[in-house]
């Protein structure tokens, strides 16, 4: 299989391009995704290639165009509305949570709502408190939605293509810091990645670090540093939150006896809490120390770099969490 290096943004763009070509029901909606090519350039060239009827520039009306996407999905299309900054998804919450997520169930299965909502997440760009948040946990809390949080160009492409063939509402979170900074191998040939299959990004035996989206890279950097100190950390990426591959997460922790859970979202009532509950139940007898959670501190994401970087998880906080686990490990 021949591969080349693509950035995260290029992988997203390639998935959209291939699926637009494959299925004429697919139509993209968003603010400046067309003629501009997207402020993050994830739809670059698609407007020219597929035209303004399939790559649609919308007014600044998140509730309006996400709602229209729900309607178009209920009448035979597969829309892909984009939320430029994930923070703006609050403006479309009714249509996502009260309409798209429930429509199938509350109508007794009369209709499917195949809609793929692409939203960004992530801080670290001095964008301030309304352009830096990571709200994937909210959607993982809602029955009827699937939630995808890819960490690599390879995963992003394969999972997005799966989303675009899924008959359900999918909320697909892309960490905008990764768009142009993260590069990775992507096969030339077509491939899909199924939902609900976690990926072990690095094998290890002393401790498990569960991380998602951009935090996978932070976790891998932490694992590399720990390796130099003789500590072998396994890094596991769930890749999708709904459905969640509990088995792989639990198995890894059963093997290593310790779990650090890392997410850029808020710690309080967040993804790390849910994953900790999964681990506590599934690997209780194997845990040698309390589960550690590393997330954003519970404050609005600040603007100034020293403040912002203090709130978002980093390599150091992950390493310290691993130390705490190893210190707390009971003698064998």
């Amino acid at each position, binding site marked *: 299989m021949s591969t080349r290096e693509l950035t995260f943004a290029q992988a997203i763009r390639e998935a959209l391009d291939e699926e637009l070509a494959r299925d004429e029901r697919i139509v993209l909606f968003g603010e400046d995704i067309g003629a501009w090519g997207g402020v993050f350039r994830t739809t670059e060239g698609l407007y020219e290639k597929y035209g303004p009827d399939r790559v649609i520039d919308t007014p600044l009306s998140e509730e309006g165009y996400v*709602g*229209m996407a729900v309607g178009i999905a209920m009448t035979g299309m597969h829309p892909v509305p984009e939320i430029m900054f994930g923070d703006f998804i609050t403006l479309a919450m009714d249509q996502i949570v009260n309409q798209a997520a429930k429509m199938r169930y509350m109508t*007794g299965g009369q209709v499917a709502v195949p809609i793929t909502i692409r939203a960004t997440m992530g801080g670290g760009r001095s964008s301030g408190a309304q352009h830096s948040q990571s709200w994937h946990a909210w959607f993982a809390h809602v029955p009827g939605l699937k939630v995808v949080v890819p960490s690599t160009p390879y995963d992003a492409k394969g999972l997005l293509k799966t989303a675009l063939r899924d008959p359900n509402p999918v909320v697909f979170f892309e960490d905008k810091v990764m768009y142009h900074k993260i590069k990775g191998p992507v096969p030339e040939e077509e491939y899909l990645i199924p939902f609900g299959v976690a990926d072990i990004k690095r094998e290890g035996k002393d401790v498990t670090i569960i991380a998602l989206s951009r935090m996978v890279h932070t976790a891998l950097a932490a694992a590399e540093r720990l390796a130099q100190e003789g500590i072998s950390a396994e890094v596991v990426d769930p890749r999708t939150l709904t459905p969640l591959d509990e088995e792989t997460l639990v198995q890894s922790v059963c093997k290593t006896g310790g779990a650090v859970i890392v997410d850029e979202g808020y710690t309080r009532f967040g993804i790390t809490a849910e994953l900790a509950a999964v681990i506590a139940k599934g690997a209780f007898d194997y845990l040698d120390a309390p589960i550690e959670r590393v997330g954003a501190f519970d404050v609005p994401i600040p603007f100034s770099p020293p403040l912002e970087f203090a709130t978002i998880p980093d390599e150091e906080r992950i390493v310290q969490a691993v130390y705490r686990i190893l210190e707390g490990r009971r003698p064998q």
Partner: protein
Amino acid sequence: MDATKSLSSYPTSLLLEMFRRMTLIREFELRAIEERHRGLIPGFIHSCVGQEATAVGACLALNPDDVITSTHRGHGHLIAKGGEARYMMAELAGRQPGYCLGRGGSLHISDFNLGILGANGIVGGGIPIAAGAALAFKMRGERRVALAFFGDGAANEGAFHEAANQSAVWKLPVIFFCENNLYGEGTAMHRSTAIQNLADRAVAYGFPGVIVDGNDVVAVYEAVRQAAERARNGEGPTLIEAKTYRLRGHYEGDPQVYRTPQEVEEWKRRDPIPRFRARLLQEQLVDESTLEEIQGEIMAQLDEAVLFAKQASQPQSEDALYGVYADIHNGLVF
């Protein structure tokens, strides 16, 4: 005095269908209220008694393959679009053979085969959905129309503004049909809205706004027929404001402290059903016995519907876990 032309210019079959569906809606609502008091129907009912002409006039002016989105006050819309009383009553009773397997109830009752893209518990929630359906029709080159029912309350929701603006920009085949019954729940329109006519808002979006007597089924029919023609011809959306009134509370049991009994009495004199009936007889288009016969058929139909709902099986409690996703269910993957 009704402003519309003589009824004799319409086929009698259409006029009778208007009478039949309005009467069915009225009687359905009264039976549902009764059965709620008797305990067959759980939850709340937002009846549309008094608003039958808007539902029927609008839906009969559409083609069978046109679609609507409905509201929390949606029983009339469903019946007007062709819904069957027995499956509706079963749904209201939360029974397995109901339209939505008992999962939706009054607020979410719908029949997608009839082009009803859901009643909606969120005020204004269906408006962008209708616009989206209109976009699908336009993209596929289908000469179909989507009509969004909503109330004067929903006209103050952002969803209306956003959908109206986008539909105007893209010239979508959508009709924004506002049933202005003068109250958003318990708040009189003059306390929530600084203009008298919601149709005036259409100017701001760049498409026509039409005011129609919502208690005159033929006037409503005409307005929607013209709007649908505009839509099918690619001329874009129309906002129709149908002035009407709900004769019962916002929901059954609503103490209605926000209006006077005199006001309700005043509107009862404009009740769309006796009014239409009188006109049919006055213009000598049908005789009384025909209308009595229709009335009798409807009562029998509703007796059957109530019996059907009573005898229908309850859903099994374990079924609650199925059907969240189109491809998997909780037990399999989660």
